[in-house]
């Protein structure tokens, strides 16, 4: 109990720091710390799948994205810092936020007893799929349509980012070109970490069917490794108009959707799997979905095209 209380206080303290820090860069560091502490909280709440996601996306890749943005926007952020809202607005904000927090706290304290749960339904659907991880069973079978739509949402976000490219560089190379490190340390870091990271990413994806892990967590690690070799200047990002790139991006959602449609014919409903082949079909969906998510996440971090295609 003492440990949990201390952890909760630390989470709140880091959140306050993130908001109060003078400098945006310092606030981003605070945010990365916040994500890491949340991963500890998820382990404490016996939610290892969420802990993996928080560590990979919430803290790691979001942190890298925000660090890059904060250095590029440093001047703009300093300019904007002067436009502080007036005392009346600040006071109103304090009142509003206190009310929101108090309301949510009341809801937490007044949650019904016994707690409602969908765990039995999830367990039933898990038994039908042959999967050993309940969260993967929910994502891929019980609520598969949510996951299908999520992969589409990721693609839509990417389309939104690409459409921000100025006319001259339409369809070109995303982000900046990084040069290789002359002293070789960064090159060494990339060459050392990336093979290990790819191995870990595939492992996390693969154990997802029987243990905590899965396609989102595995894909995030693969995406981070691709970004790492780009940052080290070892490879450049491909121009976003490349056909193979676009095929990779849509492969996952397309296979997912096709097998979902086939469900009408072989199991009587959209995204239904026949009992004997459920696990096989789910893994068939997961492999291209993982690849597509990995490519999408990496390109989301890379940003809109900034250099004209050759």
């Amino acid at each position, binding site marked *: 109990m003492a440990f949990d209380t201390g952890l909760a206080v630390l989470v709140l303290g880091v959140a306050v720091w993130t908001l109060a820090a003078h400098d945006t860069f310092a606030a981003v560091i605070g945010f990365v710390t916040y994500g890491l502490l949340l991963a500890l909280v998820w382990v404490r709440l016996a939610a290892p799948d969420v802990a993996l996601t928080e560590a990979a996306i919430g803290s790691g890749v979001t942190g890298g994205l925000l660090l890059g943005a904060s250095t590029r926007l440093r001047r703009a952020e300093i300019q904007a810092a002067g436009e502080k809202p007036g005392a009346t607005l600040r006071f109103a904000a304090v009142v509003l936020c206190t009310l929101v927090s108090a309301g949510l706290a009341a809801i937490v304290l007044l949650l019904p007893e016994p707690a409602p749960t969908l765990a039995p339904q999830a367990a039933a659907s898990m038994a039908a799929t042959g999967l050993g991880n309940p969260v993967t069973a929910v994502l891929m079978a019980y609520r598969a349509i949510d996951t299908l739509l999520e992969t589409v949402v990721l693609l839509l976000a990417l389309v939104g980012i690409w459409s921000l490219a100025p006319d001259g560089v339409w369809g070109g190379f995303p982000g900046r070109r990084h040069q290789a490190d002359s*002293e070789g*340390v960064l090159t060494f*870091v990339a060459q050392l*970490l990336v093979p290990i990271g790819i191995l870990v990413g595939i492992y996390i994806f693969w154990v997802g069917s029987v243990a905590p892990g899965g396609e989102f967590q595995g894909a995030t690690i693969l995406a981070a490794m691709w970004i790492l070799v780009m940052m080290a200047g070892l490879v450049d990002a491909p121009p976003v108009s490349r056909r193979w790139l676009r095929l990779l991006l849509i492969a996952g959602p397309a296979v997912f959707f096709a097998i979902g449609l086939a469900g009408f014919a072989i199991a009587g409903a959209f995204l239904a799997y026949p009992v004997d082949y459920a696990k096989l079909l789910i893994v068939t969906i997961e492999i291209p979905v993982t690849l597509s998510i990995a490519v999408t996440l990496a390109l989301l971090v890379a940003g809109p095209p900034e250099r004209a295609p050759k």
Partner: protein
Amino acid sequence: MNLAFNGLTVVAVSAGAFFFMAGTVGLLRFPDALSRVHALTKADNLGLGLVVLGLLFQVEGPFAALKLISVWLLTLLAGATVTQLIARTARLGTSPF
């Protein structure tokens, strides 16, 4: 046997926790960024190693033990190289690239 293992765990994890404390003390007491990086990484890597050693007596199966050790090795490798990058940034005032 079990009792002996538990005893070893307690000793190793305690020693690990001590090194983490030493790292933080170094961080607070040393004057400049370079010596702080040095104190922090040396002590913390040793601390993590001892914690991993202590937990090795508790886990079941060789695969779990292998994973624990690889976490430590990965932290060591990544930490050593990344520390060098940061130290260079600290020394030159800005990134050397």
